[in-house]
C-alpha cells in the first residue's frame, strides 16, 4: 500500500507554526513580489478569496475582514518541507512529490494496521511541526491521490482516508469525475465526456484497447490499471534531486523600461540559476530568457517575448552564462514598454564532468571550474543577505538592484537564520 501525505494550505500553515494565534483566523500568503494570493487558510477560502487572485483585487475584502497577509517566505517553507520529509522517512521509503506532498511506501504494514499507521503519520507531523496534513492510503499512486482528496474534502474522515479494498475503490470510482483524476487534463476530460465517459467507473468499464486509443496510448492504459488498484507506477525513492531544468524568474518591485536595468535583473537571475546548476554538478547546454509587461494592467501596451540560446559547449560558468543570457535579452528587448517580470531558464543538462568540448572552444574550462568552486565556497561560508543574495557577486547583476522584489510582509526566517529565530518574552 502507498500513502500520499499532503500538507493542508502549506504556506499558510508554516506561518501559523510561529504565530499560533492565527489558527482559526483568515490568513493568506502572496507570491513573489506580493503579486497574487498563492496560499489561503480555510477561513480565507470561506470568505471568498480565490486562488491566484491578484492582491489589488482582493484588497477591499482583505481590509474589510481583517485578513492577515504574508509575503512568501520560501526559506521558511523550504526548511519546513525538508523537516516533513525527514519525519516521513521514519515510516517507510519516501518519494518527495512536491514541496508539500510525498508518497510513502507502506508495504511492510499489515492490512489491519494501515489506518492506525496513517493516523500515526498524521499525528507525528502535527506533534513535531504543528502542520496539519491529510493522508490517503491505497494500493496505487493514482488511488492514493484520490484517497487523499477524500480525506481533505470530507471532515468526517478526520484527515485519513483508505481505499484499501476493492469494494471501497469501486464505490469511489462511481463518484469520481474524470476531470478530477490525477493526470487527466481539461482537454482530455472534454474528449472523454464526448464519449459518455464521466466518472472513473465509466472509464474502467471501457476496454484497455478503447482507453489506449482515446486516452494517450499506454499512459492511459496504465492510468486505468491504477484506478482498478493494480500498481503501474513505482515509487521514485531516489534521493537524487537532479533537476531537468532550473528556472529563476521574478517580478520587479517597479516597472523597468531600460535595457540596462533588465540586464542587471537577468544577470542576477542567471547567477542564482547557475549556482543551483553547479549544486547538482550539471552543466547546461541551453539558456532561455523571457521578459514581459504587466499582464494585469488593462491600459498599458502588452509585450512578452522569450528566446532560447544553444551554447556551443555546455557550461556552468556564471560569467559565460550571463554573456549568453544577455545576448538573448538583446534579441527580444523592445524599447517603449514597461517591463514587470523577467526570467532565466537553464536546460539540456549534462553531468559536469562529461562535457563535450569542441575544437574551437577557447575558454579555459579548468580555470573556470576552479573559479566557480572558489566563488561558491566563499558565498556558502559568508551566507546570504536578506535578499538571498551572495556576498561576492558579478557586477553585471547591478549594485543597487532597486528593481528587486518587494516583500513588504515577510515573516522572519525562524528556522534558518540565527538573527531571525523566534523571540519570546518570558
Amino acid at each position, binding site marked *: 500500500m502507498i500513502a500520499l501525505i499532503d500538507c493542508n494550505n502549506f504556506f499558510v500553515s508554516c506561518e501559523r507554526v510561529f504565530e499560533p494565534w492565527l489558527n482559526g483566523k483568515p490568513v493568506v500568503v502572496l507570491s513573489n513580489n506580493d503579486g497574487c494570493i498563492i496560499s489561503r487558510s480555510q477561513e480565507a477560502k470561506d470568505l471568498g478569496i480565490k486562488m491566484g487572485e491578484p492582491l489589488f483585487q482582493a484588497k477591499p475584502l482583505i481590509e474589510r475582514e481583517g485578513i492577515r497577509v504574508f509575503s512568501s517566505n520560501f526559506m521558511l517553507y523550504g526548511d519546513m518541507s525538508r*523537516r516533513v520529509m525527514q*519525519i516521513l522517512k521514519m515510516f517507510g521509503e519516501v518519494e518527495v512529490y512536491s514541496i508539500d506532498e510525498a508518497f510513502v511506501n507502506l508495504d511492510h504494514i499489515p492490512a489491519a494496521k494501515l489506518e492506525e499507521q496513517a493516523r500515526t503519520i498524521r499525528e507525528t507531523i502535527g506533534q*513535531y511541526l504543528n502542520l496539519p496534513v491529510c493522508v490517503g492510503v491505497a494500493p496505487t499512486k493514482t488511488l492514493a491521490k484520490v484517497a487523499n482528496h477524500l480525506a481533505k474534502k470530507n471532515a468526517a474522515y478526520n484527515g485519513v482516508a483508505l481505499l484499501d479494498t476493492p469494494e471501497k475503490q469501486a464505490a469511489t470510482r462511481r463518484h469520481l469525475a474524470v476531470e478530477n483524476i490525477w493526470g487527466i487534463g481539461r482537454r482530455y476530460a472534454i474528449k472523454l465526456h464526448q464519449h459518455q465517459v464521466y466518472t472513473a467507473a465509466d472509464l474502467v468499464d471501457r476496454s484497455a484497447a478503447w482507453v489506449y486509443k482515446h486516452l494517450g496510448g499506454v499512459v492511459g492504459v496504465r492510468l486505468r490499471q491504477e484506478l482498478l488498484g493494480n500498481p503501474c507506477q513505482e515509487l521514485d525513492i531516489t534521493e537524487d534531486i537532479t533537476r531537468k531544468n532550473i528556472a529563476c524568474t521574478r517580478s520587479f518591485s517597479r516597472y523597468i523600461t531600460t535595457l540596462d536595468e533588465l540586464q542587471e535583473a537577468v544577470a542576477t537571475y542567471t547567477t542564482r540559476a547557475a549556482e543551483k546548476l553547479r549544486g547538482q554538478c550539471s552543466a547546461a547546454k541551453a539558456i532561455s530568457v523571457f521578459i514581459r509587461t504587466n499582464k494585469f494592467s488593462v491600459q498599458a501596451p502588452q509585450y512578452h517575448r522569450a528566446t532560447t540560446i544553444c551554447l556551443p559547449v555546455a557550461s556552468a560558468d556564471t560569467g559565460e552564462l550571463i554573456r549568453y543570457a544577455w545576448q538573448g535579452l538583446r534579441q527580444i528587448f523592445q524599447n517603449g514598454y514597461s517591463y514587470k517580470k523577467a526570467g532565466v531558464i537553464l536546460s539540456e543538462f549534462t553531468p559536469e*564532468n*562529461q562535457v563535450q568540448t569542441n575544437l574551437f572552444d577557447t575558454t579555459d574550462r579548468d580555470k573556470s571550474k576552479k573559479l566557480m568552486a572558489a566563488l561558491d565556497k566563499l558565498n556558502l561560508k559568508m551566507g546570504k543577505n536578506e535578499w538571498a543574495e551572495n556576498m561576492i557577486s558579478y557586477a553585471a547583476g547591478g549594485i543597487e538592484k532597486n528593481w528587486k522584489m518587494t516583500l513588504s510582509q515577510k515573516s522572519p526566517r525562524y*528556522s534558518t537564520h540565527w538573527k531571525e529565530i523566534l523571540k519570546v518574552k*518570558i
Partner: protein
Amino acid sequence: MQILATYSPTSLTNSVAVQLYEHQVPAGFPSPAADFTERTLDLNEFIVKRPSATFFVEVSGDSMQNAGIYNKDIIVVDKSLRAVHGNIVLALVQGEFTVKRLHYVGERLFLRPENEKYQLLEITSEMDFVVWGVVIHVLHKLYGHDRAD
C-alpha cells in the same frame, strides 16, 4: 547497426570514496596515535536529539533565572516530546508565548516561574493553553557578548 556496449571514460557510479589520513609519516618512531584516528565531536549531536522537531528560540526576561535561563539566552525546543510534570516548556497561554515549568498538583495544572518576583499561574479549562514544545537545553553566552544588554 547495433550498439553492443557503451563505454564512458568517467563514470560516476564507479567512484570509490577513500579516507585520507593526513598525518605525516616520519622515518623514525611511528606515531602511536595513528591507529586511533577518530571523528571530531559534534555539538549538534549532543544538543539536538531530533533535528526535524527542534527549534531555537531567543528569550528575554528574568522569570526563569533560577532555572538558569537568563535574558537573551537561546533555548533549544524539542517539539517531539510530550510534556510532563516538571518539564520546562514553551507554551502558548491566551495567545502569547511564554516559558515556564509545568507543575501538576493532583489534577490541577500550574505554570511555575523560577523567580520569586513572579506568581504561579493556574491553567484553568476555560483558558486558551497549549504546549508548543519542551525546552531541552539553554545556550548561555559567557564571553564576548555582542548584544547590548
